[in-house]
């Protein structure tokens, strides 16, 4: 009503624009098409890599359009904003009339409209009075609400159910708004970062994923132990970190976490996400004289020079590798050292952990082998806070319920009109639903069949 009063008002034009389904279709299609871009062009990579890939000209255009982080770009957010306004305006626009139908005090039936919808007619050989008592239980057996009206020549039964299902669509649209609101809350008040903790150590802050900045925490996370197990094929089977949360230096909570089973503590979630090995601190190395069988044991760290007995000279471990590549073979964890004899040239020595006698291949007088790498693991944790999650999850539930309601349920109305014809009666059964008209036709047919069995004896 109000809208008509102010027609001609520019605001009315804006309202109409945002209430239209045409805009919805346009926006949804635009979102579908533009979303493709970010799947074809990898997102959030190094600017130099983009520059190299696309050349200066395209790089400038893409940068201007935020193509390299398009899902957070101004124009994409603008589309989503428009969609949100569209949903809200459209829902407000229609809600009042739906509300009137759903929450009407006096349920009114429009028999003329029902007569025009799908109907079945048949004659019965009983009087309307008899039929009324026969029909009523049948109809109210499958409809929640029934009402009988007497007419001059007989009676009419009105029945209906599923009035509330008209609100399903609003639930779906509300759920979309909830998802967007939850997402927004998460991006304003949440964070997403990661941290690596060596076994036995603890941290008080994490590194944020987007900005690379440090984010302090209100508590300390300590990694007491880390374990990784493997399948026979070598694929990882399970990662497990024993974590303790400390507040003011005192342990307050502990839990073993695995992938898919995080810690949730004071609104902060701690996930197992990766692991690695730390540079060994103290490596135990053995040196064997091939001829005499004499074994010397020494301890050293990477880069530390060891003076060897006899005339073997000096040895130093130069570097450590997780996966040493030897002529195309992965030797796994290995150390790389340099042996400098008193006389002669320095030689490079490869010491894979998995193959202790590997150095025999060098065919030297001295055989070197690493006995204990003093290896330590660190656990890689993802640490997040997202206060929007409860809102988003509510949106999820509302969306599923709303979709189910609006797709598979409907407001069904039925009327059975009985008119006296001599000592017999003429019956009309008409049904109408706001959705799935074919389905309602079938129901009406079935009801008519049931009733005609009662009407004829």
């Amino acid at each position: 009503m109000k809208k008509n009063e102010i027609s001609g008002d520019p605001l009315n034009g804006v309202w109409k624009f945002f209430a239209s389904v045409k805009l919805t279709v346009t926006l949804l299609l635009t979102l579908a098409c533009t979303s493709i871009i970010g799947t074809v062009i990898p997102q959030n990579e190094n600017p130099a890599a983009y520059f190299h890939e696309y050349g200066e000209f395209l790089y400038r255009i893409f940068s201007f359009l935020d193509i390299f982080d398009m899902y957070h770009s101004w124009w994409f957010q603008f589309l989503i904003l428009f969609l949100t306004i569209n949903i809200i305006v459209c829902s407000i626009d229609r809600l009042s009339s739906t509300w009137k139908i759903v929450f009407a005090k006096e349920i009114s039936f429009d028999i003329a409209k029902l007569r025009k919808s799908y109907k079945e007619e048949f004659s019965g050989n009983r009087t309307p009075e008899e039929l009324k008592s026969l029909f009523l239980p049948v109809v109210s057996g499958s409809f929640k609400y029934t009402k009988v009206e007497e007419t001059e020549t007989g009676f009419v039964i009105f029945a209906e159910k599923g009035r509330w299902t008209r609100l399903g669509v609003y639930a779906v649209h509300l759920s979309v708004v909830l998802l967007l609101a939850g997402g927004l809350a998460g991006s304003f008040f949440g964070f997403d970062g990661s941290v690596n903790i060596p076994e036995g150590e603890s941290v008080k802050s994490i590194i944020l994923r987007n900005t690379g900045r440090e984010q302090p925490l209100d508590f300390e996370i300590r990694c007491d132990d880390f374990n990784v197990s493997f399948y026979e094929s070598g694929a990882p089977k399970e990662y497990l970190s024993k974590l303790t949360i400390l507040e003011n230096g005192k342990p307050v909570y502990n839990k073993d976490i695995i992938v898919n089973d995080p810690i949730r503590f004071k609104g902060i979630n701690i996930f197992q996400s990766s692991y690695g090995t730390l540079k060994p601190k103290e490596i135990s190395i053995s040196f064997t004289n091939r001829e005499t069988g004499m074994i010397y044991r020494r301890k050293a760290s990477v880069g530390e020079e060891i003076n060897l007995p006899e005339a073997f000279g000096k040895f130093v471990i130069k570097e450590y590798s997780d996966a040493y590549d030897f002529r195309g073979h992965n030797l796994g964890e290995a150390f790389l050292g340099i042996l400098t004899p008193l006389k002669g040239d320095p030689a490079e020595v490869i010491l894979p952990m998995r193959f202790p006698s590997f150095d025999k291949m060098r065919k030297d007088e001295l055989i070197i082998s690493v006995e204990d790498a003093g290896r330590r693991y660190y656990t890689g944790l993802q640490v997040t806070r997202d206060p929007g999650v409860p809102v988003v999850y509510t949106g999820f539930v509302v969306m599923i319920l709303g979709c189910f309601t609006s797709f598979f349920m409907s407001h069904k109305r039925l009327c059975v009109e009985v008119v006296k014809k001599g000592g017999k009666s003429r019956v009309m059964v008409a049904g109408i639903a706001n959705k799935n008209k074919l389905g309602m036709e079938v129901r009406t047919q079935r009801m008519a069949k049931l009733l005609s069995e009662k009407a004829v004896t």
Partner: protein
Amino acid sequence: MNSSNLLSITTFIYGFAAFFYIFAVVFKKPLAGRFGTWTALAGIAGNISGIALRWVESYKMGIGHAPLSNLYESLVFFALLIVVIYLVIERSYGNRTIGAFTTPLAFLAMAYASLSPNISDRIQPLVPALKSNWLIAHVITCFVGYAAFAIAFGLSIMFLFKRNDSKEEGHFLKLFPDMKILDELSHQMIMFGFLFLSAGIITGAVWANSAWGRYWGWDPKETWSLITWFVYATLIHARFMRGWHEKRLAYLSIIGFAAVLFTYFGVNLLPGLHSYGQ
């Protein structure tokens, strides 16, 4: 007999079912259609036994998990759902011509799973991230949705054929259901699919949140499932728009199914990582 053999045989059975259904339409031989139904039922039996056997085999190998963890297993499941949903429709509408447009899709899915050199039918152990009940819910809901969209796609193709119906009496297009029914039925399938696709995206998001603490990350697979969702949401709303007749809706349904296929197969060609589906 191991599960892979059983499923290869199922592929052929579906091939025969598709052949019978198509034969029945093209040569207007209802009897062949009935053969099609029985063959499809046999295919379902083989398909279900194959999946069950695979499940048992994985436990015998000591890495027991539901057979829904890689591309091969999902394709096999996808084929099963297409045929099951189709047979439900066949029963309630009593028209076998739809089989000619849907069972070939099941056959193609199975043939691709069995024959493509890129798809391994080995039973692999689960990496830690895949050990989640949400993953199982995610795969099941997504593939129910995809199967419904596949059938809607078949129905939309039939609709477009029927639109160009020749007036000639006795033409095989006369066997097709009415345009009104085709349109209504494909709409039903799309609503059904949309509900399950939404549930699939949601369970995927919940799974991601339980594994990585992030329910949405705009990775290509996620984004493509959202694109698919946008396309079908467009279709659902386009029905409410005046001037959008059914032909355009049929085209949208075909585009939607193309998006499904891309979400399913094409995404592996794109840069980026989705731990599932490789």
